């Protein structure tokens, strides 16, 4: 009998961080990008396409550096990031809070679901005129707009996550003496975390889209505003430079999110 026990118990107690093997295709993507950029550079130089239509990658980098060095793009970047995260945090916090309420109380769900169903499908960018009338064109308007965009994906995902909680876990917690508040805090909300994170991932993308789009329409400063302006005065190099910057911001945020995901979901790695 003890054979079974010892066979099971022999496993070494080092569960985490198996050395992640780098697969041998890791450089394919970067190499493809490099070749693409070189072809672009050479293609523009050989064919003589005017800079107005398609600047060379090297010129775009120069434009980006110039924008930062002499035209205060750092201020615009900081402003845009503040608006993106302000709206994201505000909307997400409200979404999680309402989602937990709606997911745990049938009465609250029955009362409020019709409002969610009515407002969720409205494209949030179409709220710009109304929000400008109410709030003007300042930061408050932009942050509220992004918050509205972030609220619903987080809300809907939180409701799903909370409702999907395994009833067996709640039973076990009650058996161990958990109060309603403790069940919520220690069982229901942690169980909903993967779903909530999926909602947050969607929300951050929506916040970026809404802020840049609204800045293009209404703002004087911010990456969207500068992008719009550069387009109007046919500074194609600046347009590309700002697009490059937006792309870099997107890459960094996606990476940060996947690190956060891995940290929060580390118990799922078996």
């Amino acid at each position, binding site marked *: *009998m003890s054979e079974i026990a010892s066979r099971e118990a022999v496993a070494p107690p080092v*569960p*985490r961080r198996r050395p992640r093997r780098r697969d041998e295709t890791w450089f394919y993507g970067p190499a493809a990008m490099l070749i693409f950029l070189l072809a672009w550079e050479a293609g523009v130089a050989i064919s003589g396409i005017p800079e107005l239509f398609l600047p060379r990658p090297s010129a775009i980098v120069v434009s980006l550096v110039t924008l930062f060095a002499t035209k205060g793009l750092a201020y615009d970047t900081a402003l845009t990031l503040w608006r993106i995260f302000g709206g994201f945090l505000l909307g997400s916090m409200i979404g999680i809070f309402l989602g937990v309420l709606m997911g745990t109380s049938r009465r609250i769900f029955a009362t409020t679901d019709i409002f969610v169903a009515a407002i969720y499908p409205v494209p949030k960018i179409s709220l710009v005129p109304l929000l400008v009338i109410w709030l003007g064109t300042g930061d408050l308007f932009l942050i509220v707009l992004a918050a509205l965009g972030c609220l619903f994906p987080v809300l809907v995902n939180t409701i799903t996550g909370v409702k999907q909680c395994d009833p067996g*876990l709640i*039973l*076990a917690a009650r058996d*161990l*003496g958990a109060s309603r508040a403790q069940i919520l805090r220690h069982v229901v909300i942690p169980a909903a975390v993967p779903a909530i994170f999926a909602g947050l991932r969607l929300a951050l993308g929506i916040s970026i889209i809404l802020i840049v789009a609204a800045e293009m329409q209404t703002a004087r400063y911010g990456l969207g505003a500068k992008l719009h302006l550069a387009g109007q005065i046919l500074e194609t190099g600046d347009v590309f430079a700002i697009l490059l910057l937006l792309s870099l911001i997107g890459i960094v945020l996606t990476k940060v999110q996947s690190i956060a995901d891995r940290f929060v979901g580390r*118990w799922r790695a078996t």
Partner: protein
Amino acid sequence: MPAPFAAIAVTRLSHTFESRSGATTLALSDVSFEFPAGRVTSIVGPSGCGKSTLLLILRGLLAASEGEVRFLYGAERQPGPPPRMATVWQSFNLLPWRSVLDNVAFGLELGGMGRAEREARAQDAIRAVELGGFEKHFPGQLSGGMRQRVGLARGLVMQPEILFLDEPFGALDAQTRLYLQEQLSALVERSGRTVVLVTHSIEEAIFLGDLVMVMTARPGRVAATLEVGLPRPRGLDAQKTPRFGQLFEEIYGLLRDEVRKAMLERI
């Protein structure tokens, strides 16, 4: 010395489930029984006979439609407030995002015990179920048998006066089940606490029980109560004794018709 543990007396217990469509199912009908203090009572019955429902009612996690559950203390069997209780579940019900240590300490944490003390107690419980060295593992990294030992440690660390076992080995393979049955048998014999075991395995009911309560198919009623009377400590050889075979036959005889009824009902 009389055991300080509590007996559970149920009188005229009935329970009806109501589905969303309004259809009602009578799960338990008129169950009266006394689970004696400091002894192991096994409940066997065909699937769907309401034995798990009965366990939830005894544990106080489900309010019965009718009837009464009382806890009796001492030789005079004085009724009193519910004692400390803990349950081990068929599907383990461990919190997958908590380590083994944090799962075992969970009940103590809920009760407001400080970190140092609860972790020390959880360590002891983990060692008692032979899982020392696995404190930092997550449940998803353990085998079924190890997970159920975590479930057992999580219950034992609460020092329950009554321990409920809801088909604790139902989800495990045959060898693991045998081994855990032996381990549990030893733990139960040492503690002398009141245990209620729900199982669909006749062997398990006899091997672990002092008393076997046989239930009928739905609606569940008490068909018979048998005194096991096998000496403790029991090893696997207990299963080869004539008494074991006799009990098995008797219980199977009681259950056979009920199992058939339960099967026909599901067709």
